[in-house]
């Protein structure tokens, strides 16, 4: 049976939500961005009028002003965006029970079988767009495909560019429509892969599709093979609704407000990140046995950094069991150049119902202590109980408290 998959994408999501809240902004160039004095002063979203002046996402605030002097800066309200995103999921769920949020402003919908209720795919898409616009004030674009990849390509490459905001790709028209596009437009191709492929003389999606599958596989392994499948519009993945999804890992990462080069400061931040990861794992009542550390260097033009993992001797979610491993990973792999972003994740998760007792320490006590700390923070806030190192320079705890994803709530 042919599947019908939608990818719904919100136009200029943050900016659209702001305009919906304050209709006086309509028609003016609006940019949502953090404090222009700090690194967070980058464009998180710009509406169509602002983009027309040349403003792009991730641009510095000062650049916007020179491009468009009348631009209106609005500080982010992350909690509102999350609420609107959840509201959208509810609207989608009126049409199908298989909704999978992909990011805050993108959600996959499996509409297979719904056409007997709501009509052909295009009609369903237009109807969803109408309900979203009426109830949230945000314009939604929908890409339709026979699998998630086709839906994503349909949305990014076509639906966003047409006035109805709907486009359908099928196995039949996929090659004719996408193959002439530049290779950069293929889902999964970043600027480094684009550079690699250009070196092989491949400039279009069709060019990649024409390569033998084996060649892509031998050169780039499974990733190469996936790109080849993407070029052919093939994707075997499914839309699982959120309720059935299993957690494979928990992670937390942050971009620092300025580049850190002092080891002590970085270690303070690593402890705060580790604590947050462990707190999340404990909240899910899980313990993990693989720790991953991600670190990105400060130099944008010469991307450096690493992502390395280590298996723990036994599964745990105790911050101070995991922190020494994070430190060792950092010390082993850090090239001593300034650091821009850090992330820690814990995977290999399993239920925390069982605890292998130890001769050396009272593990139950450590577990109970962690839970008690989590409960205090749950009730009185994240800054109610913290480690003394969070009072030293470098700490991000107080700066980020009350923010969501590092942006103002």
């Amino acid at each position, binding site marked *: 049976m042919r599947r019908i998959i939608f990818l719904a994408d919100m136009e200029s999501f943050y900016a659209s939500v702001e305009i919906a809240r304050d209709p006086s902004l309509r028609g003016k160039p609006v940019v949502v961005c953090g404090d222009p004095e700090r690194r967070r002063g980058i464009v998180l979203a710009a509406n169509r009028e602002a983009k027309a002046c040349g403003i792009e996402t991730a641009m510095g605030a000062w650049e916007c002003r020179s491009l468009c002097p009348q631009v209106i800066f609005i500080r982010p309200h992350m909690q509102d965006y999350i609420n609107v995103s959840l509201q959208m999921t509810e609207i989608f769920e009126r049409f199908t029970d298989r909704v999978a949020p992909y990011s805050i402003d993108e959600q996959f919908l499996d509409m297979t079988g719904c056409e007997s209720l709501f009509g052909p795919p295009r009609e369903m898409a237009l109807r969803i767009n109408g309900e979203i616009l009426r109830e949230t004030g945000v314009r939604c674009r929908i890409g339709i495909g026979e699998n998630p990849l086709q839906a994503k390509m349909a949305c990014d490459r076509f639906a966003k560019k047409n006035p109805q905001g709907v486009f359908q790709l099928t196995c039949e028209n996929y090659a004719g429509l996408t193959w002439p596009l530049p290779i950069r437009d293929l889902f999964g191709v970043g600027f480094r892969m684009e550079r690699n492929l250009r070196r092989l003389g491949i400039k279009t999606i069709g060019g990649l599709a024409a390569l033998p599958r084996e060649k892509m596989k031998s050169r780039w392994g499974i990733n190469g093979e996936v790109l080849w499948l993407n070029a052919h519009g093939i994707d075997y993945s499914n839309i699982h609704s959120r309720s059935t999804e299993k957690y494979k890992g928990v992670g937390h990462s942050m971009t620092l407000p300025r580049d850190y080069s002092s080891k002590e400061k970085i270690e303070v931040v690593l402890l705060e990140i580790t604590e947050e990861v462990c707190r999340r794992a404990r909240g899910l009542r899980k313990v993990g046995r693989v720790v991953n550390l991600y670190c990105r260097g400060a130099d944008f033009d010469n991307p450096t950094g690493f992502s390395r993992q280590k298996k723990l*001797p036994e*599964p745990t979610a105790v911050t101070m069991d995991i922190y*020494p491993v994070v430190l060792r990973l950092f010390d082993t792999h850090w090239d001593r150049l300034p650091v821009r972003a850090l992330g820690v994740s814990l995977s290999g998760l*399993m239920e925390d*119902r*069982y*605890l*292998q*007792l*130890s*001769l*050396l320490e009272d593990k*139950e006590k450590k577990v109970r202590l962690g839970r008690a700390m989590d409960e205090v923070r749950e009730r009185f806030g994240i800054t109610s109980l913290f480690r003394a190192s969070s009072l030293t320079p470098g700490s991000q705890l107080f700066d980020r408290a009350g923010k969501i994803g590092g942006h103002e709530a």
Partner: protein
Amino acid sequence: MKFLAEQSEMLFYLQACMKVSPQRSTIPSLEGIYLCCVENEMNISATNLEVGIRCKFPAHTEKDGAVVLPAKLGEIVRMINDSKVEVEVEDNFKALINCSNVNFQLNGLNPLDFPELPDFNKDIDWTINTGLFKEMIRQTAFCVSSDEGKAPLTGIQFSVEKDVLTLTSSDSFRLSVKRGNIENVSGKEMNFILPVKIINEMVKFNFSQEKILVTLDEKNQILFKVDNFLFFSKLLEEKYPAIEKVIPMEFNTTLTALKNDLVGCLQRIILISEGNNFITKIEVRDKTAVFLANSEMGSVEEQVEIEKQGEDVDIYLNSRFLIEPLRYIEGDQVKLNFSETNGPCVITPFDEEDAYLYLVLPIKS
């Protein structure tokens, strides 16, 4: 330097040395094997600076001398189809290996670059029966920790008191204690932690001498002398945690079972429990013990016939931790002792309860 040696004999000792020479080292000569021949006696040795082996065997020497040759020499000698191997080393440490129709030339190193190794020229501290020593090591080495974060637990604790040697090993979840008699020549009491590397190699040999001679030197090294071998190892400069005190004096439940029944049952239990961190539930009743495990794959339940004394008990244990000691316990029957649901399980052989004890902590649910 020039000598003629028996191929099989030379191979045997070279292979022993290859067990300790490091694959890669910042000191090039450590990657090789040191050879020295003096008056019809060959001495060969290898070390990684932590542990080492020295051995000697007879050879016909035409010209005395010494050299360090690549560890590959062992493989060369293995592949030679001749009962004799002739080695001649020139002044520039190039070695020519000649036999029937093959001529190898190996680039050697200056023997003066090879570290000076300890010698057994000190008085013996104690001696132990070779077979007993190997058994004692086997019964303790398997539960040594491989976690660098628990440094003292990466070795076996040796305690000598009068004529009794007690070995203790633990990875913090379980504990092995093995006692055996020695002849304490020096009469000294001692306590030290020995990394497992060298003794794990030692137990693989079939020695012909009945006694192993042991001494500690002033550089915090232990030396074992047996047959034509001298094994040595640095000791860990750590303090062993006082974990023996967790061994309960009394038990509420004691069960006796046939060892092979338990091993068979646990092997089947592990098929399922390995998908769930080896978690196994054991319900001990009057005539049976029920073993249960489940994982994402499915579940398993097995009854084992037992003799029980004391109360019923339900306990969660790691099935891998349970099966491992059974491989090293002699005799047809074993005893499992429990004190309470969250207390340790202690396994002992049926007859010699004092000689060996294995303790494993439960999993708390």
